[in-house]
């Protein structure tokens, strides 16, 4: 393997191919993190709504989850990028096509964020539902109202339970950010392909990209294991008893 091509001046843009790789990493991180903000907030709200016994809160949340998780991410990308500007009022659509800064980036963020929200919602829901019914009863029996029961009992426990599955959802978002290349976001996988086309150093550049993905994945896993030990409840093992 010979990685010396990385320091060669790139075909365009003034920098080296290594700069292209760095740009790719930057966009991968930006798309992932922005999408995660949407996925986590929207997914949390939906997941919590799905655990309530109020049908007109639970119903729409369930419909959202079913609709979004049953359509491939690639289709989400195309719909946000190609279809959305045609579906909104004309003035807004024109702005989205001509005036909006970084339309590929924002389409990718929205597509990935709202798609992953449906998966996050399922994790949050099952986390909350894994808390024994007796906990809710005990909290209600002391006179807490249902919102207080969520605030002080169900959510603090539920979020501790879902840290591991949410970590893996974040890693999924991070890997799925590569689908953004289909609408022209030059993230890491896209850069790797482009560099391979210009330099024919396919093996080296794919290896480098793969190593970057693996290293970031490992870093996230280690970080989240630390978070898990920090929030661990003393004496409490698993979710059952």
């Amino acid at each position, binding site marked *: 393997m010979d990685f010396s091509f990385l320091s060669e001046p790139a075909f365009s843009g003034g920098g080296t191919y290594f700069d292209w790789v760095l740009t790719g990493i930057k966009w991968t991180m930006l798309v992932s993190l922005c999408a995660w903000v949407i996925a986590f907030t929207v997914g949390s709200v939906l997941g919590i709504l799905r655990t309530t016994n109020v049908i007109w809160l639970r119903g729409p949340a369930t419909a959202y989850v*079913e*609709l979004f*998780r*049953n*359509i*491939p*991410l*690639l*289709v989400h990308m*195309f*719909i946000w990028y*190609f*279809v959305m500007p*045609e*579906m909104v009022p004309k003035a807004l659509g024109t702005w989205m096509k001509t005036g909006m800064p970084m339309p590929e980036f924002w389409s990718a963020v929205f597509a990935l964020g709202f798609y992953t929200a449906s998966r996050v919602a399922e994790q949050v829901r099952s986390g909350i539902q894994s808390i024994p019914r007796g906990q809710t009863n005990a909290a209600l029996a002391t006179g807490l109202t249902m919102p207080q029961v969520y605030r002080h009992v169900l959510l603090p426990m539920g979020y501790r339970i879902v840290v591991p599955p949410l970590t893996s959802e974040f*890693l999924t978002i991070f*890997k*799925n*950010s*590569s*689908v953004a*290349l*289909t609408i022209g976001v030059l993230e890491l*996988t896209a850069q*790797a*392909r482009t560099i*391979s086309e210009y330099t024919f150093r*396919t*093996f080296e550049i*794919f290896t480098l*990209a*793969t190593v970057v*993905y*693996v290293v970031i*994945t*490992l870093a996230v896993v280690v970080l989240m294991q630390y978070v898990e030990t920090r929030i661990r409840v003393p004496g409490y093992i698993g979710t059952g008893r």
Partner: protein
Amino acid sequence: MFTGFDFDVIQRSLPYLWQGMQFTLGLTLLAMASGIVLGTLLALMRLSGIKAMSVPAAGYVNLLRSTPAILVIFWFYFLVPIAIKHISGDSYAQGIGPFHSALIAFTMFEAAYYCEIIRAGIQSVPAGQVNAAYALGLNYWQATLQIVLPQAFRNMVPILLTQSIILFQDTSLVYVVGLTDFMGAASKVAQRDGRLVEMYLFAALVYFILCFIGSYFVKRLQQRITPPR
């Protein structure tokens, strides 16, 4: 909202879209079958207790699970022709065609995910079952094939099917190497006729209906397998 749209384009291109769907379904089913076989082997290796087997299997699974599907597709599109030339010793050897390259890529990719499901399934079979099988004089393969795997698969079927629905969705990513699966066909028609809105909404609808029905049946199956508490 839909004025100025031409939904006839869908009807005109139905035969072409159906060809794409056959590609998608074929790829999904074959990758699922071979992915489960490979995944089972990987799971048995990981659980073998023999370092020379479990370490490479774990390494493979973790590597594939931390790499994006698209990058894996690119990898195998690059590696498969090289491997074929290497194996056949003929530097002008013909490729094996895009369908088979995609099949290999998805088999290798999904096997890592199936492996983890199957590993958990095998671990859920009580150790006493294996001991009882050995006590009756069965050897490793007899115990595994006759006693452990049947029980493990019984518990795993819903999760394996759910993973296969994800695989069905993931096959749309062959778009990145220009193959004409269902999504590829839809997008080619969309580009050719300038009917992006109609075709992409139609594609979304088709995927939604198929996946929704699929997950509905998985849920039903799950309820039948796990007795209500």
